[in-house]
């Protein structure tokens, strides 16, 4: 159980998933939800969560059929080898670009709020190197760190959010349900991208001890994140109003500024919020880095992933420097979101599942 640094327990996967699901867009998704649905933003978020359950179901179904394989292997088995490798490479490229853009946006935010005089290159490079340090130590270390970070991040966050309640004006949520239904649906679909990290379950097969509980665990993670997302949206809209939420690039940050914690000595809580953001982004980037090197390891059929990590660092760094400013970086993410992100969440796993069932590949519950 303790000997190698690569098998994790199911609970740890749960925690890691929650952490990952949080990071992607927490600071900005209330804005996107408000842009689509105004004061019914929270309904769109609920819709997105429901969609996420569907994704989770599909993905865990295909993973359960091939317990010892990652996406690389079973896509090669189900479809042909070259298609499998192509898809895996696509997956890793997509993850790399996501990671690079997240890094860039993170760097911009840190530079703006915390370190106006430090070159953004150094900010990003230092984060990358720290992540590389973690990733080289293996997935179990990632999981253990995740367990600790989850407490450090969530408990203060929830406590601080409690202090926002005096400023909430729930009438800002009115009128309810005035947004036309098709718009809500489309909005839910767009918003469901915040649950993209679920696709990482496609890769965790051989890393987890007890795969049968994977489905339950992913549902718990989605539910938990979903509830928090909805609450966050409701609070943001009720404090800032739907118009205000649309205006801010990072509404949750703005929320932090408004909160008054009586008696606390810290005055500018948005800088405090950055602490959580830094920890969340760190966890996200190191997870992505691990999985990218993991995919590559599996494609190359290599033994260890450690040596692949270091070359990744400069590659991602260079990619993240490509956009000229934060607006362009956001554009890249939009592009990814519209066309590519959904791929690995639903169509591809579904396809694999159907083909696998037809060709009777992998283990299934009926056969046992």
């Amino acid at each position: 159980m303790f000997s190698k640094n690569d098998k994790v327990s199911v609970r740890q996967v749960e925690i890691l998933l929650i952490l990952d699901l949080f990071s992607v867009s927490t600071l900005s998704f209330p804005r996107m939800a408000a842009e689509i649905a105004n004061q019914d933003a929270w309904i769109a978020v609920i819709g997105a969560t429901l969609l996420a359950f569907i994704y989770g179901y599909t993905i865990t179904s295909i993973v359960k059929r091939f317990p010892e394989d990652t996406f690389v292997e079973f896509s090669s088995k189900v479809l042909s080898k070259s298609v499998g490798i192509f898809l895996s490479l696509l997956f890793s490229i997509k993850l790399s670009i996501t990671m690079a853009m997240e890094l860039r946006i993170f760097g911009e935010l840190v530079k703006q709020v915390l370190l106006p005089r430090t070159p953004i290159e150094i900010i990003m490079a230092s984060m990358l190197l720290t992540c590389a340090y973690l990733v080289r130590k293996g997935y179990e270390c990632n999981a253990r760190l995740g367990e600790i970070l989850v407490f450090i991040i969530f408990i203060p966050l929830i406590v601080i959010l409690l202090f926002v309640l005096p400023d909430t004006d729930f009438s800002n949520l009115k009128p309810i349900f005035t947004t036309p239904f098709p718009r809500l649906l489309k909005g839910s679909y767009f918003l469901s991208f915040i649950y993209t990290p679920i696709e990482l379950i496609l890769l965790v097969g051989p890393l987890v001890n007890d795969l049968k509980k994977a489905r339950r665990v992913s549902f718990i993670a989605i539910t938990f994140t979903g509830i928090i997302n909805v609450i966050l949206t409701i609070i943001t809209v009720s404090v800032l109003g739907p118009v205000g939420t649309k205006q801010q690039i990072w509404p949750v940050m703005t929320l932090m500024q408004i909160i008054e914690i009586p008696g606390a000595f810290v005055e500018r809580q948005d800088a405090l919020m950055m602490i959580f953001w830094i920890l969340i982004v760190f966890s996200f980037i190191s997870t992505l880095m691990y999985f990218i090197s993991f995919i590559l390891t599996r494609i190359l059929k290599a033994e260890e992933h450690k040596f692949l990590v270091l070359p990744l660092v400069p590659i991602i760094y260079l990619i993240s420097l490509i956009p000229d400013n934060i607006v362009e970086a956001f554009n890249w993410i939009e592009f990814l979101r519209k066309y590519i992100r959904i791929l690995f969440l639903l169509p591809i796993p579904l396809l694999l599942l159907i083909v696998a069932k037809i060709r009777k590949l992998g283990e299934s519950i009926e056969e046992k």
Partner: protein
Amino acid sequence: MKILRRWVGNKLSKERWEDKFHDADNKVTLPLSKDLEENIKNLELLFKDCGDFVSRKFPVGIHKEVNMYVAYIDLMIDRRIIEESLLEQLMLQVRGVPPHMDKIRSSIYDFIRDGGIATADIKEVDTLDEAALAILSGDTIIFIDGYAKVIVVATKGWPNRGIQEPDSEVVVRGPKEGFSEALRMNTVLIRRRIRDTKLKVKQLQIGTRSRTDVALMYIEDIVRKDILEDLGKRLTDFKIDGILDSGQLEQLIEDDWRSPFPQIQATQRPDKAASAILEGRIAIIVDNTPFVLLVPTTLNNFFQSSEDYYQRWSIMSFTRMIRYMAAFFAAGVPGLYLALTDYHPSMIPTQLTMAIAASREQVPFPSVVEVVLMELAFELLREAGTRLPGPIGSTIGIVGGLIIGQAAVEAKIVSPIVVIVVAVTAISSFAIPDNALTVGFRLVKYLIIGLSSIFGLYGFLLGVLIVLIHLVSLKSFNMPYMSPFVASGINDYEDLKDSVFRLPVFMMNKRPIFSRADKRVRLRTNKKKNE
């Protein structure tokens, strides 16, 4: 770890120990012979130039037919035993045995061994090496003419400090005994606390020249066999001249020598060692040192002091939380101060910001230099205080801390807030029960100061993350170092009950993960707590 071992092994290569009389492991190769004179000659050759080597040759038997030879090291033995139980018996009693000489002669050895010596602890050995070792351990050896065997009589009685109160792990409530330098005394102290036949004392010797006795104590049915085997392997994986303290042993068997954090715990208190053994850990007792090693160890163990279990849970939970906070302060406060004042002054309340800015206006150094200077000055003070004897040591503390600090502030070398920051850091580092862990935080503090001074709050967090990553990847005998905080689902969160807080005794009814999985229950109460 491996590098150290290889270095040790290479340096101490075979050629150094081998000479005419000793082999590669520094063991004596001279044979025993039946001829007394030859044995005496060999023995005295080995102990040439040893002024404390005492020997006596005397005949026994009514007609003084048989020669015997007794040898020991002066003052390592209890003279009374030698004179009363040994020599008196041999010289007087045996002499007076009526002559059935043939019978006696044919087995005078057996006779003496079985009846002639009135002590309980008698061994016979048949190599000169063991005989020499016995002499060097404080026993007395007897050569008998005509026999190639040696009788070893236990006569150990060297001067000893005895049992005193341990000076480093002081408690308000609890036993005040501490380990001493004698191995046997230490094992006895533990035996008194655990009167279980399954408590085992496995002894081995480490060090080719020092031949230090090392005892492993554990409870057979609770301890994990894999850890025991691993420990056994690590202890025999190297060859060293000698070890003088358990610290050297610790460094030779620990998992990661590069880490600033200790992975093995050392204690001077028998009750702590006994409690660890009851949890399923193994105690390593090394002769000549009162510091006993406890293996495996997690980070949480360093925050537990024995007093935690003797006092009541509410006050002790509170104290535990303070200790964890202290660890964080000891590493993080100077870095946080630097990050906030230099990069994010908007986070500090206005009044305080103005005060800090005002006091810093006249100080010539940049903040980083101030902080590092004060920290180093404090380390100097601490070192000086340790070396100086008793009353002068505490005076230096007051003089150094208060007066020099105050004077430095007035001379505008440092600003008063930095003095406070450094003082808080130092006091926090003293609040951690185990000194070995404090060192880790003291070193890590500089890393965090460095990163905070370059990157502000972001750097502070990166520093904290780096430390956390390191801690999370550490293992102590294959047990994760951060154990109760990670993967605690393995033992149903039992370990968490004794980490940041300490739940009431009746709630902690399972052993922590150190022990075997199937032997975890240690407490069963009969009454229901609701009544």
